[in-house]
């Protein structure tokens, strides 16, 4: 019984982490129509910021997380203004630019802080929550409420503010949004900033759990893309649903069989879902 409960809790934590990464990615794709492969590097910069401020600079953890969000949000906005704005409507161009950004950020971080040994970030919440025969580290568990909080803030922003409604309008129909006087460039900058900040939140919160190094974004961004594609690219509700699905699927398969098969099953499921419903779980057929 306890293994089932433990697996469910593990799945929930994994899903929360997937949501943090994938929601930002899908937001950028929805508004800007860009497959941003540098999203994993934004996650990495978020983790590095926490390592630098919290681990080295002894600044309180949540202050470090907040700074990480702001720093990476700023990097995202600058990237949008300087790089991505030039290639709107050109998916391939956007893809190439994001790949360039991947290398730039990796090399920059490697040059500044070295690429040798991984950067250790001590736990902020030591110990574990033990209840009903299961045990979960507090540091992992904290990802769940933090994700809930950040998604709630994002929902409020998108549903209740004028800029948020503008973002949704651009995602739905860019030309119609322009005709209604919405500043599309501004919406794109906001989407990129928010998406990048979500990635940074993932990296910053996970920094004490994973090891921090310049290439840590690779596996994360691939998982993020699988989730976004299955959820329906640009669809936040679908992405959340997809993150839940893959979080549970991967954790259950990794527990019952092994983690390598977990990854294989995940990609296999993506192919099957896309074969049946090419627009993704919550996407609409054009």
């Amino acid at each position, binding site marked *: 019984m306890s*293994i089932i409960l*433990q*697996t469910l809790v*593990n799945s929930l*934590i*994994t899903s929360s*982490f997937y949501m943090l990464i994938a929601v930002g990615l899908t937001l950028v794709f929805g508004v800007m129509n860009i497959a941003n492969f540098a999203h994993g590097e934004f996650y990495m910069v978020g983790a590095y910021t926490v390592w630098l401020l919290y681990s080295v600079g002894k600044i309180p953890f949540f202050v470090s997380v907040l700074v990480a969000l702001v720093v990476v949000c700023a990097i995202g906005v600058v990237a949008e203004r300087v790089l991505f704005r030039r290639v709107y409507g050109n998916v391939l161009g956007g893809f190439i630019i994001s790949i360039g950004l991947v290398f730039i950020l990796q090399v920059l971080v*490697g040059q500044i802080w070295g*690429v*040798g*040994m*991984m950067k*250790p970030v*001590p*736990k902020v919440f*030591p*110990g*574990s929550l*033990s209840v009903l025969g299961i*045990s*979960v*580290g507090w540091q*992992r568990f904290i990802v769940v409420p933090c994700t809930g909080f950040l998604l709630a803030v994002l929902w409020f922003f998108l549903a209740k503010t004028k800029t948020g409604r503008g973002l949704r309008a651009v995602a739905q129909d860019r030309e119609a949004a322009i005709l209604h006087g919405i500043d599309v460039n501004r919406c794109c900058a906001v989407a990129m900033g928010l998406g990048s900040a979500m990635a940074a939140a993932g990296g910053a919160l*996970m920094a004490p*759990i*994973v*090891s921090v*190094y310049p*290439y840590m974004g*690779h*596996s*994360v961004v*691939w998982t993020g893309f699988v989730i976004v594609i299955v959820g329906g690219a640009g669809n936040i509700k679908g992405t959340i649903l997809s993150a839940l699905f893959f979080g549970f699927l*991967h*954790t*259950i398969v*990794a*527990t*019952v069989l*092994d*983690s*390598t098969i*977990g*990854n294989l099953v995940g990609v296999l499921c993506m192919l099957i879902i896309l074969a049946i419903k090419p627009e993704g779980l919550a996407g609409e057929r054009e």
Partner: protein
Amino acid sequence: MKRVLYVGLLLLVGAAVVFAGGKKEAPAVEGTAASGVVKIGFLAPLTGDAAAWGLPGLYGAQMWMEDVNAAGGIKAGGKSYKVELVTYDEENVASKALLGAKKLVLEDKVAVVLMMAGATVTACQSFFTENKVLSMSLAPYDTRAEAPYHLCAAEPSLVYHLASIPYIAKTYPNVKRVAIVAQDDEIGRQGLAYLRAACESAGLQVVYDKFYGFETTDFAPIMTAILNAKPDLISFDGGYSYYVELLAEQAYLMGFEGIIESSEFFLSSLLAKVPADWAEGAVASFADWDDPKLPKYCHDFYAEYTQRWPGQWGAVSWEYAANLDIWKFGVESADSIDPMEVFKALKSAETIPHVYGEGVWSGKEIWGIDNFLATPWHNTEVRNGKHVIVNTQPILGWFYQPGNKEILLKHLKAAGVYYVK
């Protein structure tokens, strides 16, 4: 006229093939030595997952080089040579290792190539053999008949599990159930075979033995499955320190109270993840070199190393330097820096001085060639945040006990890592 051109072209191509690919001889190490410098190739992971098995070793090799040069260099053939390290970061990627090997041998003309272990070494061996390059790595399973000039002299990588499991079985008789988990690569698979063999011989039951992929970031599901098998001992096999730390952290957080075992624990990183009292008693195979059981040379090396590179001490900190000590012994015995002369001198020596005692070339019954230097080796336990020596034995002592050879070969074959043809 056209026919003449074709024939001429064919001759040119033929000549190019003969001169470029057909002629195989040792690269001209002596050419660089004319300047009074002998170059050593350091081809190991300095970045990425396996950096903990390369970078700390590079620091040790640098210390060795400085000491040798300060003492006047290496003397051979009536000359004195300064030593120069040429490094190449292979990132634990086989293709990059081969690229680095070619660069070090053909461009830099190094006299010996030092490597880590596993797939990166295998990738370079044909090139080394064809070009008669002396190479040394840290794993006995890198030695094989098809790579006659490759030596494993400093560390019995993974073979020490054959000593640590019997030590645990004898010291902790309540240990009956063992879980083994490792990354899915040559090192993990080799280690699993040694661990299974040692467990079978000691009468321990293996209740979990699986691999995880390099892309794994979340170890909670894996540890959930491990703990569900109710092990008394979890072995992290030859896990990279990055994975071992995350797995150990999960084991701690999920309430595991048994014994943990691994090739090594990179303690400065591990103790940032788990409390020191939980890690107490963890069994590994590498001593900290300020251990009272070790000679003064080790203490001096450790003191200088930890002062110059705080927090970087690990299993390999001294090992590349130990290989260089053995290479230097070969140079002095051969009175030459020529790689093949050094190789012959090393192989013809009755015993080789190793920092843990006299070593003898062994291994033919396991790897098909006697290119592994069998020496005494230690079991260690973590005590008060340090690796402390708790037992010492000949590293192949377990293998020569009745019945154990058959058990080991059976598990190596079952794991698909028995390469003797």
